[in-house]
């Protein structure tokens, strides 16, 4: 049989609970405040990063409009009111986490540019997906995609993979290929 707790024990327990919960309450309040202050800034940063990427992969466009087909999010790119292409969001499963990308394509599926927005690959290996060689202006790996048809992409044939990072290279390539294929069939259906 369990011993009945003494009155002083209960009091002590109550005191522990009170101290802990008041500290937690204060912490909650402070965090809620910080979240409220930083959230618009964080969203703005994400948007800025995306806008910068849009400019890089679709340099001719002067306006973008968001859209969604199935579960694929994309931007329609316009130049003086005329639709010149799409910037499609693609997500690949890399070696250590997701690789989020933005792919620019013309309406017939030729890639105009590819920009990695977010990755957490191994530094020195997979992280070279964003490596800019001295003297160059853009990452060499993603630059290879420009000017090629998404459906023609093939590793080691027309795309050099990153040394020691086969999984990363494959993940980027597969994600681009599959997302664009799905996107093109999706917009095809939409247009009739």
């Amino acid at each position, binding site marked *: 049989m369990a011993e009945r707790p003494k009155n002083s024990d209960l009091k002590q327990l109550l005191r522990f609970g009170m101290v802990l919960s008041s500290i937690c309450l204060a*912490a909650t309040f402070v965090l809620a405040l910080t*979240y409220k202050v*930083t959230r618009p800034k964080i969203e703005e940063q994400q948007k800025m990063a995306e806008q910068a990427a849009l400019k890089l992969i679709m340099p001719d466009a002067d306006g973008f409009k968001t859209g969604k087909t199935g579960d694929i999010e994309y931007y329609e790119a316009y130049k003086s009111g005329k639709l010149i292409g799409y910037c499609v969001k693609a997500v690949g499963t890399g070696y250590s986490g997701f690789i989020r990308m933005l792919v620019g394509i013309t309406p017939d599926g030729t890639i105009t540019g590819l920009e990695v927005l977010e990755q957490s690959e191994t530094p020195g*290996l997979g992280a070279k997906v964003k490596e800019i060689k001295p003297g160059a202006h853009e990452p060499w790996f993603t630059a290879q995609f420009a000017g090629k048809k998404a459906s023609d992409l093939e590793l080691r044939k027309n795309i050099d993979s990153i040394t020691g990072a086969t999984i990363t290279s494959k993940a980027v390539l597969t994600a681009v290929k599959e997302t664009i294929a799905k996107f093109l069939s999706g917009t095809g259906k939409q247009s009739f």
Partner: protein
Amino acid sequence: MHLAHHFIKGLWKENPTFRLVLGLCPTLAVSTSVMNGLGMGIAATFVLVGANIFVSLVRNIVPEKVRIPCFIVIIATFVTIADLCMKAFTPALSRSLGMFVPLIVVNCIVLGRAEAFSSKEPPIRSIFDALGMGVGFTWALTAISAIRELLGNGTIMGYYVSRSFEPPLFMILAPGALLTIGVLIGITNLISPKRN
């Protein structure tokens, strides 16, 4: 005089990385580039100072038996503030440090200082202790990062230093971190006066 002593001891005599050998997990993981090392050090210093102040302020209210959860809540609060602020104001750094900013919560330097120092000392002294430890951690991390980035990637702060050699990749991976930290601890042991 005394306050300065609390600050200075963290820089060398009780340097968290080289002398106390604490917080090695984040040290191994983020010391791949000087930018990462510096950013991590500054974030950890912010958390150390904030947490130390508050741990010291509540040290007489918090019962001994529940002190660890109380300290952890305080530390976690500051870590989350640091994480949100980095996301908002330094998004590039936040992306490259990734998971390791939230993991400052379990960095043993922070809990170690709360337990060993600020839970027994008044706030002003705690601030100096935290600053000393934070700066000590930051310079140690920056030194390790500089060596690894230079040897493993051929760059410093992202700028190419030399193209005359193909950088040995292992310096930027985990073995390079262990090697660098080991050699640096060896050197600090050599310089420091022998303990009896």
